[in-house]
């Protein structure tokens, strides 16, 4: 009788063993068939879709902003046309807008293209550029009198920040991504000769990881730089007494 009981409990344990085996096999099979990553792809697709929608919204907003700006200009012109002082004020306002980067600008200048070389050429020392190199170049250009600068058509405004992100997989400029692994084009409007001289100066373009980049610059007679398409923040500043 005891032996019979014992054998029955062993049978249950055997059943349990096979339940475990069956579970493991089926679970693993299910995981392989529907990997969790697939869910991430789905999420990525959703996100991409969302980005598309936001981009469309952004385009619409920019158009609206353009229209409103145009209206504003018209009002100003209308108001200024009546008075000489107002006309001067209007000119001053236009100039301020240009300097702030609120309008597209054009003029002579320099384009600089930075293309990463093959990392395999010097695998031990190779580094991609970070925010530091870009800030350095902008500073060099500004020092040489650049009046408007853009990096990959992202206008550098007075409120632009440049920061490496995600372990330097990209650099954020105006909250938009620029990859240090791809070619970067910098445009600067100013005195062509001065700008050219500043970047061609011996050692000027060998700062940090720049030595691993193929750097080409070209003076251009008429360069166009797009406007800063973000809103300026003025939550904290106030006019001095």
């Amino acid at each position, binding site marked *: 009788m005891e032996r019979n009981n014992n054998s029955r409990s*062993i049978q249950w344990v*055997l059943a349990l063993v096979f*339940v475990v085996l*069956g579970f493991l*096999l*089926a*679970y693993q099979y*299910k995981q392989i068939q529907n990997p969790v990553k697939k869910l991430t792809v789905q999420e990525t697709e959703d996100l991409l879709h969302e980005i598309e929608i936001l981009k469309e919204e952004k385009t619409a907003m920019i158009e609206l902003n353009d229209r409103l700006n145009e209206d504003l200009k018209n009002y100003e012109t209308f108001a200024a046309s009546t008075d000489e002082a107002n006309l001067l004020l209007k000119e001053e306002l236009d100039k301020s807008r240009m300097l702030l980067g609120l309008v597209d600008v054009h003029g002579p200048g320099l384009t600089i293209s930075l293309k990463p070389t093959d990392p395999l050429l010097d695998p031990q020392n190779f580094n991609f550029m970070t925010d530091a190199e870009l800030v350095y170049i902008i500073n060099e250009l500004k020092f040489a009198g650049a009046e408007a600068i853009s990096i990959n058509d992202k206008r550098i405004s007075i409120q632009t920040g440049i920061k490496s992100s995600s372990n330097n997989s990209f650099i954020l400029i105006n909250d938009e991504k620029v990859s240090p692994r791809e070619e970067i084009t910098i445009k600067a409007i100013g005195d062509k000769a001065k700008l050219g001289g500043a970047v061609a100066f011996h050692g000027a373009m060998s700062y940090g990881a720049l030595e691993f980049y193929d750097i080409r610059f070209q003076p251009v007679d008429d360069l166009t730089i797009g406007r800063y398409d973000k809103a300026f923040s003025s939550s904290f500043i106030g006019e001095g007494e």
Partner: protein
Amino acid sequence: MIIVIGLLIGILLGLFLDIRIPDAYTTYLTVAILTCLDSVLGALKAHMGKTFDNMVFISGFFGNAIIAVALTFLGDKLGLPMYLAAVVVFGGRIFNNFAVIRRLAIEKYYKGKRNDTI
């Protein structure tokens, strides 16, 4: 019979129960499956050779799985793919067990045939 029922229940649980084991433990699960399969084939071999013992099978089933998972864990901590050791050893044993099962089955088959002719 109870084995088949157990296996079926396990498969159904695995397929329909919404249990999430983190991705990081996939290797552990695979290694555990390999050791369990080895134990089952070992048990089948023992059964055919008439040396099967429940306790040996059950202890081997869980013991081997635990050791293999522990080895994988240790490998993870040491940065060495120790799970490969389990894969090689248990993979080899599966083949060995299968070879013995095959021989025993063929032997049984011939024996049966000979008895029939006599």
